């Protein structure tokens, strides 16, 4: 990095009309005061009297039969409270429910390995001791005898006759497979002037690696059978559905509580196995147990992002550069256990044609198990992999047919006048202007002087390339899409809950079902409620985190899948409107006028035409809570409102795999310039532009933060971050030494721009957002390919391109050229 870096600037902002009040204002974040003072309460900060520390004994083998587990020496150590083994787990729990169809649903997944270890780092036993160091010492005394088995790491070999079978019960490594076919791909092929073929593209395995590792503190209340699960799990609804049947208990016996969470990004959805083990230990040892994952454990065993290969890609293209669709096979590697999978086999189809007007699409999709860490949602979940593919298709086709990457995008983008646009599989893109966003991004990146910069870089011996990445951040899932995967599943729609009350002293109190991890939900919820209640965000207390005991949650509660602005705020808005209506009725009863004559403003309920006749919030709260004699009998007012927001979804057509799978589509166009050193393959991102459109921004600064963070994660994933395994299934990047995440010096100059295309389907026109960073992966890949035009016309075929891979491509262009061919049809 040079010192001539320009700071972040939002050079282009085109806002829709700003509403009065707090919506659209970057009010100070409520969360900040405690966090900047180190007063946040994260999971490892919680302590309980008599608490024991949990440490897991983990398999050093990727695939091995467990011959024996002997905990006796560990139990002899002073300060050790107890242990848990797979044999106990197999007796005391049932395997987790599997989402997939037979035979994949025969996979037996427990909180500890039972009989066999299926990936390096799989927990085999657990030890609890008085201190974390003692627990580690004791874990080393647990003697496990393993019989190593042949290992499967290559997903493309998983169906070979001689491939090791990872789970004996299903008898196959295939978790799920299905054919997705929309339009008429054969006719499109016949109509094409060129058919571009790509043999293989690979989307790499990485994760967002939140800085706070996973953890939990579990207490068991013996008389009631109630577990109190303090954790940083980000989707308690899903954890409860997994854990309650496994623990043979009711959903309400699992109380989930979270406070501050140190980043999650989807990686903290699937912590239910470890939390289950903690539940068993708390019950067995009659004491609270605390588990904090070590970084090495997080890299080895916390969910990774889905790895995916795209094979035998065929793209029919017209002479003018119009693409008609594509056909391919996709193999998704979910690691050793499906857990949240195979939902990723469907989730990508929220963005089937990417941003393009492609109508003829066919994908033969298979998900398989390997001896690697299980995968799970990771910022951009499954759509990122697919959108990387669509962007590679665009840029490879452009490269091979000598089309301009800007022009070919504009020719194929869905147009703003076609919005709302129904995709070939029935999804509805709500709003957006992709061509305009691209123009904004190009202006920010200095496209006008691209060729001059290229020539100037060439004089310095550098190869300069421009790359564009277009993505959609689909938000607010219709869980009915799970039925496309397995028609027997009984999930559909979506919902989120909020409660709001006016308390005795006039304090407005909100509880959320969402589980924020840095997205500022306390702040944004208070903006929405303040606007409706006629007070300020400072007058509103939003409780921190999530708690089942608040009864402000539903089965889908959590923070994931870019939905808070729609579902979370939809719930807050609904609850605040209910409360406002009650406050008006109460004031009307006291002041003796119709409720319609009452307005809420300035922290008062007052008569519109006689502002002297006013009741402060404190008076309303006191009347209902402690001073209610004489109120009319039929006045049904509690000043305690609960609202469940439910988006308008239908169950999709299972036969055609057709229907609206998400409510909103935020969009991102990123562009970057890279300079490659042709001698070494080292490269630098020298300029970067990110244009984001998430509809109306409720809190622009928080949106900006999400854009920045997602961009940085994409830059990391594009340039370095990889969970690499050797042929024996050993993870080669189990810590931040080997797994290089970007540092402050790695960041390019960033220019951010915002467009606001309000969603017609949501309150305030806001769209969920935060996952659009995949655009950065696409843009870096495209820029590298563009840069290498002058050095052999290489095809970028992997999502992760560290300098060594660029060097390999520079050394052997032909190895990448072989991956593509063009058939001329006319």
């Amino acid at each position, binding site marked *: 990095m040079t010192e001539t870096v320009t700071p972040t600037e939002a050079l282009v902002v085109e806002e829709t009309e700003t509403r009065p009040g707090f919506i659209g204002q970057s009010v100070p974040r409520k*969360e900040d005061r405690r966090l*900047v003072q180190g007063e946040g309460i994260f999971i*490892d900060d919680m302590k309980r009297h008599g608490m024991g520390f949990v440490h897991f004994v983990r398999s050093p083998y990727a695939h091995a039969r467990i011959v024996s587990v002997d905990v006796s020496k560990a139990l002899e150590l002073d300060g050790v409270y107890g242990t848990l083994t797979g044999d106990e787990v197999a007796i005391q729990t049932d395997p987790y429910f599997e989402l997939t169809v037979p035979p994949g649903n025969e996979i037996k997944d427990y909180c500890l390995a039972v009989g066999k270890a299926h990936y390096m780092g799989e927990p085999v036993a657990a030890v609890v001791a008085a201190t974390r160091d003692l627990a580690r010492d004791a874990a080393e005394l647990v003697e496990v005898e393993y019989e190593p088995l042949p290992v499967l790491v290559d997903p493309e070999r998983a169906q070979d006759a001689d491939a090791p079978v990872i789970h004996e019960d299903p008898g196959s490594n295939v978790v799920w497979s299905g054919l997705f076919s929309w339009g008429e791909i054969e006719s499109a092929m016949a109509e094409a002037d060129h058919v571009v073929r790509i043999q293989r593209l690979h989307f790499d395995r990485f994760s967002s690696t*939140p800085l706070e590792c996973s953890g939990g503190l579990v207490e068991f209340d013996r008389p009631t059978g109630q577990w109190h699960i303090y954790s940083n799990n980000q989707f308690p609804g899903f954890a409860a559905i997994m854990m309650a049947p496994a623990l043979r208990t009711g959903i309400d016996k699992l109380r989930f509580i979270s406070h501050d969470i140190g980043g999650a990004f989807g990686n903290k959805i699937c912590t239910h196995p470890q939390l289950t083990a903690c539940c068993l230990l708390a019950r067995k040892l009659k004491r609270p147990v605390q588990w904090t994952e070590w970084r090495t454990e997080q890299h080895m065993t916390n969910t990774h992002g889905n790895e995916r290969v795209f094979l035998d890609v065929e793209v029919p293209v017209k002479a003018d550069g119009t693409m008609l669709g594509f056909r391919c096979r996709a193999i998704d590697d979910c690691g050793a256990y499906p857990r949240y999978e195979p939902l990723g086999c469907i989730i990508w189809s929220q963005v089937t044609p990417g941003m393009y007007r492609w109508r003829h699409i066919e994908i033969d999709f298979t998900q398989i198990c390997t001896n690697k860490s299980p995968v799970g949602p990771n910022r951009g979940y499954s759509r990122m992999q697919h959108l990387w593919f669509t962007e590679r298709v665009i840029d490879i086709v452009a490269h091979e047919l000598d089309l301009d990457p800007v022009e070919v995008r504009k020719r194929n983008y869905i147009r703003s006048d076609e919005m709302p646009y129904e995709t070939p599989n029935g999804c509805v893109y709500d709003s957006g202007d992709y061509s305009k966003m691209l123009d904004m991004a190009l202006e920010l990146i200095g496209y006008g002087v691209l060729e001059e910069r290229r020539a100037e870089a060439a004089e310095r011996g550098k190869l300069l390339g421009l790359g564009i990445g277009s993505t959609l951040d689909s938000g607010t899932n219709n869980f009915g899409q799970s039925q496309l995967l397995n028609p027997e599943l009984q999930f559909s729609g979506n919902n989120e809950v909020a409660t709001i009350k006016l308390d005795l002293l006039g304090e407005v109190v909100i509880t959320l079902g969402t589980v924020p991890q*840095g997205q500022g939900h306390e702040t944004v919820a208070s903006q929405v409620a303040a606007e409706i209640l006629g007070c300020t965000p400072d007058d509103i207390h939003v409780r921190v985190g999530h708690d089942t005991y608040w009864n402000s949650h539903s089965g889908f509660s959590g923070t994931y899948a870019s939905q808070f602005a729609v579902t979370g705020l939809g719930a807050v808005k609904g609850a605040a409107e209910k409360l406002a209506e009650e406050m008006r009725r109460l004031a009307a009863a006291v002041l003796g006028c119709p409720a319609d004559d009452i307005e809420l403003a300035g922290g008062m309920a007052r008569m519109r035409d006689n502002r002297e006749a006013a009741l402060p919030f404190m008076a309303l709260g006191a009347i209902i809570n402690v001073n209610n004699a004489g109120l009319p009998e039929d006045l049904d007012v509690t000043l305690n409102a609960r609202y469940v927001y439910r988006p308008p979804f239908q169950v999709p057509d299972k036969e055609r795999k057709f229907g609206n799978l998400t409510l909103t589509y935020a969009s991102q166009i990123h562009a970057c310039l890279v300079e490659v050193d042709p001698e070494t393959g080292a490269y630098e991102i020298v300029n970067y532009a990110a244009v984001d459109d998430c509809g109306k921004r409720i809190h622009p600064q928080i949106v900006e*933060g999400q854009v920045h963070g997602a961009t940085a994660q994409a830059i990391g994933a594009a340039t370095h971050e990889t969970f690499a395994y050797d042929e024996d299934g050993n993870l080669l990047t189990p810590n931040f030494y080997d797994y290089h995440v970007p540092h402050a010096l790695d960041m390019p100059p960033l220019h951010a721009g915002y467009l606001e295309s309000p969603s017609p389907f949501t309150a305030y026109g806001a769209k969920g957002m935060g996952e659009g960073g995949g655009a950065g992966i696409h843009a870096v890949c495209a820029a590298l390919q563009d840069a290498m035009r002058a050095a052999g016309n290489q095809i970028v075929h992997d999502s992760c391109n560290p300098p060594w891979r660029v060097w390999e491509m520079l050394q052997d262009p032909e190895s990448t050229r072989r991956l593509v061919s063009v058939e001329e049809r006319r």
Partner: protein
Amino acid sequence: MDPVTGKTIAVNVNGDQYEREVEARQLLVHFLRDDLELTGTHIGCDTGNCGACTVIYDGTAIKSCMLLAIQADGARIDTVEGLASDGELHPLQRAFSETHALQCGYCTPGMLMSAKHLLDNNPEPTQHEVRRALQGNICRCTGYWNIVEAVLAASKGEA
């Protein structure tokens, strides 16, 4: 004779004097968090890469997971809990909030202490100097852009 496995240490943390018996193998970060209940200093890795545990040791920013507690015997340690005084936030704390330089807040204490060390020694750093000073601190939420802005703003008295 049994080997010595512990020692009494005297440490000044944020101006308060502590005397505690510590295990020889205890890390300074665990001493701060577990023994002194100063949980603002966080742990994000096992290898000294992430900087969430950064504190100031006799005037130098260090990663408290890379030091044993007994090595702090006689030292003055400053942690994030000591930044604000009399309820007034430190200019860096204000700047972090105003420029949205934190999201989840997990890396923030370490970032603040690295930044404080920089500004204590170089009150008017260039942007590059700020980025170099924060190189040992990982943030997974912000992409660093607003953090760099915050430190520059604090250095210019803009917060």
